[in-house]
């Protein structure tokens, strides 16, 4: 959602630099999966603060509700039952936008200013500029953006950019009853995560660790995982997410290359015409035809 009091670092479909002068700190949301009890207060708070009311769905026989992210559900709890070290574990991951430092959605977006990356790291959709093409969905390595059936605009978690702009923590952070969701400067969140990881390791989770994938330049939503060596356990969290090479090719060097090539063909044609001249019927053949007609 648009809120212009934050400094803009990057804008979709814009080839000149955005404001670079002011240095603001990077923020992050830290989700400690090991402390989550799956109460869904964060889902409710998200819906409450952002004034979105998803359709009341059906029970699918599992805890997940709603079953997936949607234009009106910007965060969902994903519940997974796995066996690790011979015991059952109930893994609960709060899914939503990861606010990548190198956002695939922004790279793919063709509409100037429809996707904004603030200098604090938040990646925000400005629906008033969105044209509804869905390229952000194509570009996202985490399968997060959703196109609304009502207005064909793309929606996702804004990390409560409106709250953050006035020094408030995101709504989900405020609502979490166990402190599983923390918010602050990214550096501070990393320090906090290190303590949580040390604690988990002490409790026998040797592979506990922080999820801050470098393939997308790091994220501004990070997880503390008990099994950081197997992020896939957590409802398919990708182990090494990065912008797909196909998206990188399409919206990377293909763009200037194809543009230059087409300009080359157009200018080449023009200069061919002015240097070589038109290809007219020769005088000789014109005369032959005239002679035929005279007979």
């Amino acid at each position, binding site marked *: 959602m648009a809120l212009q009091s934050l400094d803009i670092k990057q804008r979709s*479909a*814009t*080839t000149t630099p955005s404001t670079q002068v002011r240095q603001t700190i990077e923020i992050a949301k830290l989700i400690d999966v090991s402390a989550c009890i799956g109460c869904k207060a964060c889902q409710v708070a998200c819906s409450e603060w952002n004034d979105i009311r998803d359709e009341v769905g059906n029970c699918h026989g599992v805890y997940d509700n709603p079953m997936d992210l949607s234009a009106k559900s910007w965060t969902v709890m994903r519940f997974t039952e796995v066996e690790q070290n011979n015991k059952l574990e109930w893994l609960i991951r709060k899914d939503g936008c990861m606010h990548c430092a190198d956002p695939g959605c922004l790279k*793919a977006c*063709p*509409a*100037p200013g429809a996707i904004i990356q603030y200098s604090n790291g938040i990646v925000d959709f400005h629906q008033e500029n969105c*044209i*509804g*093409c*869905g*390229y952000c*969905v*194509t570009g996202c390595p985490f*399968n997060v953006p959703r*196109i609304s059936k009502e207005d*064909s605009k793309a929606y996702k978690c804004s990390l409560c950019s409106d709250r953050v702009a006035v020094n408030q923590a995101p709504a989900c952070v405020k609502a979490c009853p166990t402190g599983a969701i923390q918010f602050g400067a990214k550096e501070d969140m990393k320090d906090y995560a290190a303590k949580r990881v040390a604690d988990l390791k002490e409790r026998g989770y040797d592979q506990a660790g922080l999820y801050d994938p470098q393939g997308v330049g790091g994220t501004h939503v990070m997880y503390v995982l008990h099994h950081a060596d197997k992020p896939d356990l957590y409802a398919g969290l990708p182990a090494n997410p990065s912008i*797909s090479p*196909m*998206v990188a*090719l*399409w919206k990377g060097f*293909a*763009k*200037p290359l*194809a*543009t230059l*090539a*087409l300009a080359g*063909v*157009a200018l080449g*044609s023009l200069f*061919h*015409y002015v240097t*070589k*001249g*038109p*290809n*007219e*019927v*020769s005088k000789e*053949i*014109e005369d*032959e*035809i005239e002679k035929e*007609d005279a007979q």
Partner: protein
Amino acid sequence: MIRDPKDLKRYEPAERANHWVVGISFILLALSGLAFFHPAFFPLTQLFGGPTWARIIHPYLGVLMALSFLALFFRFKHLNKMTPADKEWLGKVGQMVDGDDHNMPEQGKYNGGQKLMFWALAVCMLLMTVSGVFIWRAWFGFDITVVRLGAVVHAAAAAVMIGLIMVHVYAAIWVKGTIRAMWYGTVTRAWAKQHHRGWYRQVTGK
């Protein structure tokens, strides 16, 4: 309307109409498609009533172009079979572009370059149509890998096709007396004798 009654008929009215449906839809598709490809072209969306309208209209124009090109393809397919003479012509095309066509072998209704253009455009059209369906989110929801592949192929094939059409249009401008064949269907006998002597002999019996 009859101009010089001795002019040679090159295209039927239905063929010309078919060609212009393809041509108009192509131009509109290229303008709107470029807008989604590179920010430099984004202002072109204003020609379509704004960026969101451009996004909505583009794929429907694509369907129109695919269907009308399919009709054009079946009309002209049999006239575009490559022959050894075409290959010889293509081998010497550099000389002609350089301004000397005296060594060019005799050509039928279409020369090797036109035939190559025909088949290259057919391949591009096929790629564009299939990949376009993959990325048409209003109606289809393909797997993300398919959509990503579709996006790359659509952009690449489009860039090639726009380049080919530029060459196609320039060739028509460069070779004087050509464009009228697509306006009202006839060419002069001298034009035919100069550029398509095989076809000239075939239709005039000389």
